[in-house]
């Protein structure tokens, strides 16, 4: 009996009217945990009942504490008939189970009903007393901390990074054909919500156990996903990176010796603290396998592909003994691990040594029906759905899924090996399901890691020392990890433009964030490749085969598009690359997003050449040259737009064979010979050079056109899909997280691939344009972490969901600092003393804009908020109002509105909050909601329905965070937004799954006073350190 859960129901407000006669409600509350239920008294005739209940106490195993959610149901008492449910609140009590997180959950929670949405609020207080039980960790894993953040969370320090943890749980889906069910929609929705909540709890506990086995104490980069496999069930799976984290007791202590506090606060990409800011990169080759292994006896084999964007191979030079040594060490450290994967996208300094490139694998599977008719019956009839123990009932099911993923991971691992890497970082997994076909995808970035991080025993203080390898500044990660003489693919190598000692590829693709120390020229931008492919409708095996056959071509085209768009932008590296392939009934869609940058270490990208097939036709020639001109103009314009003006480096110094455009095309053609030497089958650009677009038919023409139709964002806007925008580092404190969803219906039945592509392109471009328009009042600003998700809910429907955050920045300083950056890059080569002066300037100017007005406002508002729950008050005092749109109201007399008790909770997909410092992590937020309606028209149609639902989801997330005592959610992600409609029946249903880390942050302006003096001193002393790390 290791835990006592205590719950108190305080009050309700804004309840709906349940009794038409009196226009009032007789409400009472049921509090349920596990199989125990308590009830409050009925509070008669009120919409704002004050129950003020006793403490309801549940004595439970901590295993249950981890698995079960606390379920609070608000009902309307009815003497003559059954009591009517008003709605429910599910509270995940996990955050109360770790010592450092929240100690109490207390606040107003929206009362949620799956049919009516939010119906009033309820004030609840929850506490847990954990007893010290020696057996405590046997079944449960209380105490293991979970973070969605894909970097070492601020205010923690990584002692050891243990590696990959994964787990999955399978169950029957209580409602796989929602619209046809006989049971009330509410009952099945609630069964489903509860089941998923239980499964997530169980999954998290199991992962926790694995972490404890590895002797870790935390999971970072925890990503949990649901696969709604329909009739074949429901899979909840999770991956993460097990770590041993050390809490940094005081904010000051948390900074490594070489980092000044002011630097830490400033959120600049170049001087990010180790905990968050490391972004790293790698190499252009995308190493892909499209295996298609179907379940049962059916199998289609597709050759493994290695995509490279490379030019031809070139001069050989020995890779240096250091590299070999490092490889050996890493190998030793990683070998005992089955999968040397990290879900992190940013790393402590020194961990990431080299990056090899993107590795990805996909596999097409046929889902199998779960053979368990007995349980279908049970689920159909009862509301209280008990989680099935699949280990005893259906033991092979999870194993099958496990085996599928194991296969894919194995493939990823071997790809990484082929690139001379022993680890994969920025690793993620995803699925796309349509009927019984499922595409499993995994991707990551092959990398060489510093083994010292990965072993136990290297403790305390070693973190800083680890950095001290003889790595060149800001370019080490670009250096190729593989052997030049035995390259896995044809690559065009040159000496690093930064250190000139090691070889670098000409283009680098990665799935991780830009490393903090990377030297970048100009700004970055969001680059997307979009692609549709029609597919015949087919059943089962035939369908899977068709998909398997299409996949390699899609990957190839996506890659080509990315490469061309990157060149069009005049950039040479992609970070945060995420390729999503979505399967629908009659088409496949590919959407790749990444952030393009110009890495100073890599060579200047060549232009794009257009070649016609029929050179004798005069007008055609003219047309070609016209296109060529447009392309060249676009490149020039982009270079100006993104401020890409790399320092000129004379060729002699580099000694690199950068050919003239004309030569190049010939050179590249000859490359086919060298590719023969490559051991793996190479279907890459082989004979056709990536830079040369051959216009041999209308398709190709369309492709070129589509390249040129991408419109740059309006002035004042930048966008990227990484944590921060390369080249912008003076964020101001205004942030706006948003979700935008669009569903379009394709008009004609006999669509061509071209028309589809055009539609899809238009959809994405319009969506972006809309975002820019909506957020125009925030300019200059940057859309960060732009995350597109495509799904094909029905035959002719395409759904695109975008979540991102807009962050304002100071334009004037941006200009200054980019200038400084450019100068810096120039100076890097010749370590000039002036450099030392650049930093203090930057630091001081950056810390200016953020403070000013939030500070005064907080004072006013915290003074005026005299009532409210403890949690709300806490939130209020820390950060009351977002600065959005203040000041537009200045000329009005102030009405008595200031007494709001609702504290502001910020949400962001990023791991940090600009202008603020995260002081505490309160636990993971992982919520799953279903909303259904049978009166779609009355709720404003599909748009009205979904708009309200998403707003409600945000509200529930905020309420939970506030109740934990937090004032923000970081690393927020909407993992799923499954929308189904049936307008003819006036019905719609939507499932949303979101997660993130609840945190407490403090405005820098509040810390400023304390640290100003100190930082002034530290600035001077620390800068040299920063430069040389």
């Amino acid at each position, binding site marked *: 009996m290791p835990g006592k859960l205590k719950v108190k129901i305080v009050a309700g407000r804004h309840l709906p009217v349940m009794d038409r006669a009196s226009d009032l409600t007789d409400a009472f509350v049921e509090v349920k945990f596990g199989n125990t239920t308590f009830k409050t008294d009925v509070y008669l005739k009120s919409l704002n009942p004050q129950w003020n209940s006793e403490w309801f106490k549940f004595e439970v195993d901590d295993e249950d504490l981890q698995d079960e959610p606390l379920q609070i149901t608000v009902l309307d008492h009815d003497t003559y008939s059954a009591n009517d449910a008003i709605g429910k609140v599910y509270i995940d009590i996990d955050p109360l189970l770790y010592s450092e997180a929240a100690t109490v959950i207390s606040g107003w929670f929206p009362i949620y009903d799956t049919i009516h949405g939010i119906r009033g609020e309820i004030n609840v207080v929850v506490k847990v007393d954990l007893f010290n039980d020696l057996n405590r960790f046997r079944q449960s894993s209380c105490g293991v901390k979970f973070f969605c953040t894909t970097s070492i969370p601020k205010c923690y320090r990584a002692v050891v990074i243990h590696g990959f943890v994964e787990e999955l749980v399978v169950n029957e889906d209580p409602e796989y054909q929602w619209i046809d069910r006989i049971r009330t929609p509410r009952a099945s929705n609630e069964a489903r919500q509860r089941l998923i909540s239980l499964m997530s709890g169980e999954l998290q506990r199991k992962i926790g156990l694995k972490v404890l086995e590895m002797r870790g104490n935390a999971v970072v980069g925890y990503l949990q996903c649901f696969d709604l496999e329909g009739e074949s069930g429901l899979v909840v799976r999770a991956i993460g990176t097990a770590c041993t984290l050390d809490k940094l007791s005081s904010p000051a202590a948390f900074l490594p010796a070489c980092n000044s506090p002011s630097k830490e606060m400033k959120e600049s990409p170049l001087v990010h603290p180790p905990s968050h800011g490391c972004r790293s990169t790698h190499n252009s080759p995308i190493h892909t396998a499209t295996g298609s292994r179907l379940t049962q006896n059916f199998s289609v084999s597709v050759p493994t592909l290695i995509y490279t964007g490379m030019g031809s191979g070139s001069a050989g030079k020995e890779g240096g003994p250091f590299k070999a040594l490092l490889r050996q060490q890493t190998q030793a450290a990683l070998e005992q691990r089955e999968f040397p994967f990290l879900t992190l996208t940013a790393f402590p300094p020194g961990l990431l040594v080299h990056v090899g490139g993107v590795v990805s694998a996909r596999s097409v599977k046929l889902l199998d029906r779960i053979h368990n008719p007995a349980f279908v019956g049970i689920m159909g009839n009862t509301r209280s759905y008990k989680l099935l123990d699949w280990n005893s009932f259906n033991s092979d099911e999870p194993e099958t899924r496990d085996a599928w993923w194991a296969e894919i991971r194995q493939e990823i691992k071997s790809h990484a090996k082929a690139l001379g890497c022993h680890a994969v970082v920025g690793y993620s997994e995803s699925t796309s399901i349509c009927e019984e076909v499922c595409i499993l995808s995994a991707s990551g970035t092959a990398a060489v890691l510093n083994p010292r991080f990965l072993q136990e025993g290297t403790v305390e203080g070693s973190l800083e020392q680890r950095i001290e390898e003889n790595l060149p500044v800001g370019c080490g990660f670009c250096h190729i990890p593989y052997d030049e003489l035995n390259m896995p693919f044809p690559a065009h190598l040159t000496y690093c433009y930064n250190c000139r000692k090691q070889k670098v590829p000409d283009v680098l693709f990665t799935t991780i964030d830009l490393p903090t120390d990377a030297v970048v020229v100009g700004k970055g931008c969001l680059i997307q490749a979009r692609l549709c492919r029609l597919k015949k409708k087919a059943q089962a095996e035939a369908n899977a085969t068709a998909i398997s056959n299409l996949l390699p071509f899609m990957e190839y085209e996506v890659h080509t598009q990315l490469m061309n768009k990157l060149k069009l932008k005049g950039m040479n590296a992609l970070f945060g690359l995420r390729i999503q392939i979505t399967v629908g009934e009659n088409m496949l869609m590919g959407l790749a997003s990444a952030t393009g940058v110009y890495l100073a270490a890599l060579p200047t990208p060549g232009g794009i050449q257009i070649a016609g097939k029929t050179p004798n036709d005069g007008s055609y020639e003219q047309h070609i040259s016209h296109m060529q001109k447009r392309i060249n103009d676009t490149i020039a314009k982009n270079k100006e737009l993104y401020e890409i003006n790399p320092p000129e480096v004379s060729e002699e110094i580099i000694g690199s064979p950068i050919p003239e455009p004309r030569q190049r095309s010939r050179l590249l053609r000859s490359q086919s010979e060298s590719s023969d030497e490559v051991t793996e089958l190479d279907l890459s650009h082989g004979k056709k050079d990536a830079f040369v677009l051959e216009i041999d038919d209308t398709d190709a023409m369309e492709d070129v056109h589509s390249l040129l139709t991408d419109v740059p964002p309006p002035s004042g806007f930048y966008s990227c899909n990484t944590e921060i925008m390369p080249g912008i580092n003076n964020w101001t404190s205004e942030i706006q997280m948003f979700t935008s969803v669009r569903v379009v219906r394709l008009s004609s039945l006999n669509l061509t691939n071209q028309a589809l592509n055009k539609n899809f392109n238009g959809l994405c471009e319009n969506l972006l344009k809309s975002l820019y328009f909506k957020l125009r009042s925030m300019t200059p600003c940057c859309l960060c972490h732009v995350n597109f998700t495509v799904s094909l809910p029905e035959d002719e429907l395409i759904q695109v969901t975008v979540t991102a955050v807009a962050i304002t920045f100071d334009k004037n300083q941006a200009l200054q600092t980019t200038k400084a950056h450019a100068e810096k890059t120039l100076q890097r080569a010749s370590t000039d003393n002036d450099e030392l002066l650049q930093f203090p300037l930057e630091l001081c100017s950056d810390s200016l804009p953020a403070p000013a007005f939030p500070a005064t406002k907080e004072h006013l508002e915290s003074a005026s908020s005299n009532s409210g729950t403890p949690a709300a008050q806490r939130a209020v005092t820390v950060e009351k109002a977002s600065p959005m749109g203040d000041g537009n109201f200045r000329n009005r007399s102030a009405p008595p509105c200031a007494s709001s008790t609702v504290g502001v909770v910020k949400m962001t997909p990023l791991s940090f909050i600009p202008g603020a410092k995260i002081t505490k992590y309160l636990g993971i937020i992982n919520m799953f909601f279903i909303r259904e309606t049978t009166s779609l028209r009355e709720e*404003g149609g599909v748009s009205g329905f979904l708009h309200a639902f998403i*707003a409600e989801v945000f509200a529930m997330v905020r309420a939970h965070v506030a109740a934990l005592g937090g004032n923000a959610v970081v690393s927020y992600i909407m993992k799923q937004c499954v929308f189904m409609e049936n307008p003819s029946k006036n019905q719609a249903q939507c499932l949303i799954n979101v997660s993130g880390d609840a945190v407490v942050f403090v405005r820098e302006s509040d810390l400023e006073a304390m640290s100003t003096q100190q930082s002034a001193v530290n600035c001077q002393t620390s800068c040299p350190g920063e430069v040389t790390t």
Partner: protein
Amino acid sequence: MTSELDIFVGNTTLIDEDVYRLWLDGYSVNDAVALRVRSGILEQTGATAGVLQSDTMDHYRTFHMLERLLHAPPKLLHQLIFQIPPSRQALLIERYYTFDEAFVREVLGKKLSKGTKKDLDDISAKTGITLKSCRRQFDNFKRVFKVVEEMRGSLVDNIQQHFLLSDRLARDYAAIVFFANNRFETGKKKLQYLSFGDFAFCAELMIQNWTLGAVDSQMDDMDVDLDKEFLQDLKELKVLVADKDLLDLHKSLVCAALRGKLGVFSEMETNFKNLSRGLVNVAAKLTHNKDVRDLFVDLVEKFVEPCRSDHWTLNDVRLFLNQYSASVHSLDGFRHQTLWDRYMGTLRGCLLRLYHD
């Protein structure tokens, strides 16, 4: 390719003031888009009409969802669904309750009933304000009326507390509630020259001095209903015009004091008895509801119009009224000084405000 669904939801609810205004003004999405296009926003931002349409729809949807909360503004403050900075919440509320001068003049003093609501399309046609906007404004009046009608305490405070309006707007609503409750006639042709502000000014004075609240601050409906006892007592003032001696004495006192100071002295002298009779009779009649409703008509007919036809300046009127009220104190035979002051003090203020072209 048609858009089935198109939404944007921010963690902080985006409020576009211009679109809010268009929404409040009752324009349809298409009209609003057209108006925005005309404002030149496309050129400024480089957006397309499609983007504008989608944006407008989004805002309209948001406003539609917020409207339920705006009906009870404290709910907007405590709700959790929309995260809106306090200053924006205030703006939303204030604008929602702001009304058009043209509209309020049509409705002021009318019973806020279904019958009046049915006439809204006529008002809409007459004023050029969209029917939707008329309905919102009417419903606002009615909602505020219903909530504060039977409440004790200061009318303005009650309105402010329950609707979180600015002081200025709360005072306007107090006037509207007061007029609606007492059904003062304001629509007559001869009253057309008066603005809402004129009436609101009078309402405030009357609330301060003529209601129950002026005597006892703990009464229900104290600021809404006129003090019946006071109205009864006003009959006593009749003696001022019924008693010929008193009337002559009053006249001579006023004339003596104003001789040489008034531009229209002779006209005043000739008209004194008529004017005085008018003012006192208005007071005496106030026991009947019907006459209470006609208060403003009577004041204009009996005082404003005669003075205006004799070209009194505002200063003349002020001097006259001051003297007219003050001189009563010197009438030895008159015993209702306090009553007179309570009546005349307010009336003087009202008349001065009502006296213009």
